């Protein structure tokens, strides 16, 4: 295969990666933006989504039904778990920034090791709900990956609509801009925080469900999406939704290109150096508001 088609393949792979990454990172970014906390367990919500997708697929007979079932059930379960974590842990330490980090590291190990105990150390595949190949003159490409990109895009759109046009979205934006003022105007901060934490976790879980047919479900799979989301959120500027989306595409597509032409490991190293470069030029990230 010559350079041109190779590059085309890399761009395709990168775009699919970028959509899934955007979904995962948006969850992390919303949680940080509104609640001003870093959720280190975010990757585990992604992993739970993937593992639950496997469970759903093995409960329901046909791949399509199993996939649709997982797409609804997995985020609900993960969202409920996030609500519980918010209520039992995060609220009790008053969302203290560093305390939250320690607590969510704890949560990371609790979730991860619980999955190891209940689900086991194996990587398990899930059959894609649709199976067709897009035939290009140079190579065939899995149609399911394009379905992933399409679903991700519509969910990103739905989240944007939620932020821009619903009452919850208004509350979220108000809490992000000025929490005290928002509370003075009657925004129920605790409920908004709980909803945002659950929403962030659900976005990660959906991304997990979408990715299983490509990647297999494994109890350690949460680390990579976590680190990539961190990279995206730092480059885009902590708390900026627009920045998160732009950065997801920069990181996803460069990851695709370096992965196809060199190696996935090198791609991750390059992404990190990209962060260093951004920080040298703009410590607040590309779209970050200057915040102490």
């Amino acid at each position, binding site marked *: 295969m010559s350079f041109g088609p190779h590059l085309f393949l890399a761009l395709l792979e990168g775009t699919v990666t970028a959509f899934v990454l955007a979904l995962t990172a948006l969850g992390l970014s919303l949680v940080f933006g509104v609640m001003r906390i870093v959720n280190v367990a975010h990757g585990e919500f992604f992993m739970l989504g993937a593992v639950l997708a496997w469970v759903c697929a093995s409960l329901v007979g046909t791949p399509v039904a199993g996939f649709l079932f997982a797409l609804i059930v997995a985020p609900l379960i993960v969202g409920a778990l996030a609500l519980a974590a918010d209520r039992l*842990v995060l609220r009790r*330490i008053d969302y203290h920034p560093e305390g939250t*980090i320690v607590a969510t590291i*704890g*949560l990371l190990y*609790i979730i991860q090791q619980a999955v190891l105990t209940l689900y086991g150390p194996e990587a398990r595949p899930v059959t894609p709900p649709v199976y067709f190949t897009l035939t290009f003159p140079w190579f065939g490409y899995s149609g399911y990956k394009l379905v992933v990109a399409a679903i991700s895009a519509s969910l990103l759109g739905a989240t944007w609509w939620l932020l821009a046009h619903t009452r919850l979205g208004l509350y979220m934006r108000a809490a992000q801009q000025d929490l005290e003022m928002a509370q003075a105007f009657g925004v129920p901060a605790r409920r908004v925080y709980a909803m945002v934490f659950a929403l962030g976790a659900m976005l990660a879980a959906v991304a997990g469900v979408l990715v299983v047919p490509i990647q297999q479900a494994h109890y350690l799979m949460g*680390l990579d999406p976590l*680190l990539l989301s*961190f990279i995206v959120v730092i480059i885009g500027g902590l708390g900026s939704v627009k920045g998160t989306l732009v950065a997801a595409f920069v990181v996803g597509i460069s990851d695709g290109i370096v992965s196809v032409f060199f190696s996935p490991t090198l791609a991750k190293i390059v992404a990190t150096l990209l962060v260093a470069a951004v*920080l040298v030029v703009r410590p607040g990230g590309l779209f970050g508001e200057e915040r102490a």
Partner: protein
Amino acid sequence: MNGHAARRVLTLHLGVIVLLFLAQFALPDYHHTNVARIMVLAAYALGYNILLGYTGLMSLGHAMFFAAGMYGAGLPVYYLGFGAAGALVTGVAAGMLLAALFGLVALRTSGVSFLIVSLMFAQAFYLASLYFNEITLGDQGFSLSGNLAPLELGGASLGFHEPALKYNAALLLFTACFLLSLGLRLSPIGRVLIAIRENEERTRLFGYDSMRYKLLALVLSGGLAAAAGATYALLFSYVGSTFASILFSIYPLLWRLLGGVGTILGPLVGTGLMFYLVDIASGITSAYLLVVGVVLVVLILWFPQGIMGTLRAKWLPWLP
């Protein structure tokens, strides 16, 4: 601090060192090696504490400094036939150099961003140690036994497999880091660092270049972590990329938190307790890291001051 209190503090801390020295004659073999390991790891925790405890910068990437010390010491021994002393120097130098380079970029951020950036750089370091596996031998690692010449000390030749050498070298490292921490705490530099933690803007207003002090703290912290990594490699004769993984960045945070925030003895207590907790749990289940998670959540919910911190708050207000 008045003379009486100072004497009490000194007695307590020297007493701990003496007790550790005497313990080697009483401990059974298994625990003998464990305590040696704990002392080296506690030195790592002390190094970590310099950054977090004094300047308030929370890092989730100290495994890269520990591992830099490890590779900085292990690779010259393995490939170039360095002796222990030379290897220790190259190990510490590698860690300090890495810390300085990292600091120049990462100290442009603060708070949560610094934490994420440190986590990512450590991960890049870890991935690099896997990527260059022709040199580092990746996560399989390599053993130093057979490559490391015995230590010549006053005519006697001491092999690194000797338990007594392991124990006392570990104790020496721990004592050095311990005294350095205590000294830093009481020195003018230590006061500036604490001032930065409390209020960076105001410290800058007083004319202190806070960036330079933070870089100094980071280099010192990375240097101690690297010294611990280098010693670990030399004493326990193994170098592998597992020690660069995220878990090894989280451990010192956990040890320090468990032992007691802002105390000098805390890291030792926390490291020892956690070491045995993990040791016991891994005998029962393969999901032993569950213990790490549960301890973290329990600590942050009910004992945010850790063991020594709670002791200090309740009974021993003079504990440094």
